[in-house]
């Protein structure tokens, strides 16, 4: 295949871009500083298309498509912002706020939380759907880390980083629907997990205050993610 056919040209928000054919709309948008909101996506991990925040409009397609998994195509015309997309994204984010107990003011991740900052970026000043107030567990059995299910948005970044990068697969999702939860091993206290290596990758990829280090108080939990591109890069080198 000639290198020319590997390059696709497309329009994003009316501007012309070219991209490799294996790139996603989200990747192209990010390279070109076009903002598309995301939550479940994290560079260096596989994509799942689950949070639906990155839905975009594509000319000629009735359905909205998630930018994180949709590959570029020749002549594609993508719209990343519209009144309709804005409305849907806000609603989805609001639904997340109603799902569990996100009390920002007393959260370890206050001011460093992706859910919180995205809400501000999308100009959400209140949640118009009724809150659910479920009873959610806080598991502090691990010597160094805590999982607070109240803050979990089920993005599954922890599951993916543990499986794909650390290789332990300590985390997974149990149950289904509104009752789904992330668990360690056979839904046992994290501290008693036989498979957890204690590497802390899950803690640092978590977008909210669901996973945090012990000893952090309100607004004190800063997450470091730089290990992900580093590990990805080093592994590419090794392959």
């Amino acid at each position, binding site marked *: 295949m000639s290198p020319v056919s590997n390059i696709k040209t497309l329009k994003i928000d009316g501007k012309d871009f070219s991209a490799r054919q294996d790139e996603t709309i989200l990747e192209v948008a990010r390279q070109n500083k076009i903002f598309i909101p995301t939550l479940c996506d994290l560079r260096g991990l596989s994509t799942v298309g689950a949070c*639906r925040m990155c*839905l975009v409009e594509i000319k000629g397609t009735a359905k909205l498509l998630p930018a994180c998994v949709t590959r570029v195509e020749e002549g594609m015309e993508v719209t990343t912002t519209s009144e309709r997309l804005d409305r849907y994204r806000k609603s989805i984010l609001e639904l997340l706020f109603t799902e569990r107990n996100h009390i920002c003011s007393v959260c370890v991740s206050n001011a460093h939380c992706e859910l919180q900052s995205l809400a501000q970026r999308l100009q959400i000043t209140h949640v118009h759907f009724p809150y*659910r107030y479920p009873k959610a567990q806080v598991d502090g059995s691990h010597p160094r880390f805590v999982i607070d299910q109240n803050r979990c948005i089920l993005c599954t970044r922890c599951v993916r980083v543990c499986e794909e990068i650390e290789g332990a697969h300590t985390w997974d999702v149990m149950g289904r629907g509104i009752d789904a939860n992330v668990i360690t091993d056979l839904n046992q206290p994290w501290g008693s997990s036989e498979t957890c290596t204690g590497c802390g990758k899950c803690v640092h990829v978590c977008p909210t205050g669901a996973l945090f280090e012990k000893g952090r108080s309100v607004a004190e939990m800063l997450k470091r993610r730089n290990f992900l591109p580093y590990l990805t890069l080093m592994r590419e080198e090794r392959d």
Partner: protein
Amino acid sequence: MTPEELEQIAEEERGTQAQFLHRVNVCLAAGCISCQSQSVKDAFDKEIANRGWQRKCQSKGVGCMGLCAEGPLVSTAQGALYQHVTAADAGEILDALDSEPVSRLVCRTDVPFFQRQKKIVLENSGLVDPERIEEYVGSSGYGALMRVLTEMTPPEVVQEVVKSGLRGRGGAGYPTGLKWSTVAKAAGQHKYIICNADEGDPGAFMDRSVLESDPHRVLEGMLIAAFAVGASEGYIYVRAEYPLAIKRLRTAIRQAERLGLLGSSICGTRFSFHVDLRLGAGAFVCGEETALIASVEGKRGTPRPRPPYPAQQGLFGEPTLINNVETYANIAPIIRHGGEWYSQIGTEKSKGTKVFALAGRVLNTGLVEVPMGISLRDIVFEIGGGIPEGRCFKAVQTGGPSGGCLPAEFLDMPVDYESLAKAGSIMGSGGMIVMDETSCMVDVAKYFMDFCMTESCGKCVPCRVGTYQMNELLARITERTATPPDLAMLEELCDLLRNTSLCGLGQSAPNPVMSTLRYFADEYKAHVEEKRCPAGVCGNQAEEAS
């Protein structure tokens, strides 16, 4: 196995059958079995033995005869159909074989329920013993496979299916021929065939019935599909809740393998096909292709975004063809009679027949097969015999949790994919539930939303949280504590889920709500504004039971 050998088996079988002067067919499909039809069959066997009639009269367990409500059903070779048969009736029925049928048990067959049906998928149901491959072979079974293997090329087979105009019977109605040709063209060393028998819609039992009544027909369809697309391995994903269907499928697979119709070098050709069962474990979302694939792979049945489509990247990452039971069941007749023949049945865009599970507030509940394009009125009032107890028709629900409720004004609408979709419902897999004025449409909408909420896999946010929120809102409406802004929020969520959910389950979950909001707005209004339930359903159930 060669075509000649197959023909020989068929001949022998027909010869054996012809030796009997009389035949009594007892329905042994799940519906009649739950009315003790097995004991009826045993009684016939015993009575025939007592009379020393073993060479004169055959008693045979067969599949579904359709009119499940009147079971146990028994038919005789002389053409009589008996209903509500008990073990005690066996002698009397045998006595009457040479004379007039037993009038007190006779079920009339000159009525629209039987006359208006057109049987292609169900042509063998109620006639052949599903546990004997010879009977299937005796009624032209596996003839289409032979023809395909000896006379046709894979592209010709695909072409025949394209010509037939057959569309997927699982719900969405995607053109089957197109799907086949995509998989056939897909590059891949290994390709897979999957039969979706995880009949998920509550209120639908077409697939169960076909598997219990004529399992070989499904195997033959899968074999032809495998040949057409170049696959050598297949799975039947069947609900664990259907033990009888599983048992009969296992028997059928064993028998077909024994005759060399399944396995390696089928019919002496280079074509090989192995099939195995995978049991579904109670997840409606596994009706969605990518979720089903995940489940066959032994994982949580969560869907993933498409593309890539299973036709390109499916089971174990290989090109995979997924069709449902009824779709495969149509294949053998299409090959036997030609795509041209099939395309002459039905409407311009919806070809062939469709099996419906007719249930709810209708006189003749059971399984019916009708040509596409027939009107809802014909199904409900002619075939179904109308509404019992002198009540009034209110709505018919098609498509299960992904479908909608259609009011009386649509009774004369033809039943085809496009018309149903235009009216705000879907064809779905074929469940058809009739409702009368004793059903509250808000309550029905809540029933389906509760279903979708429970069945949501939880992967994507709009479906996971949205179905919960909608269910809560509907609960408030049925409890009559909702306000007009709640109704607006309900509509807002309908729009959100439809447009942003990851898979078909979430995208179509609002359908029952939207269709009832559209056609039964006054019922919602009564609950919200006047705080009353016109059908008297909401809020009374607890009192009724205690």
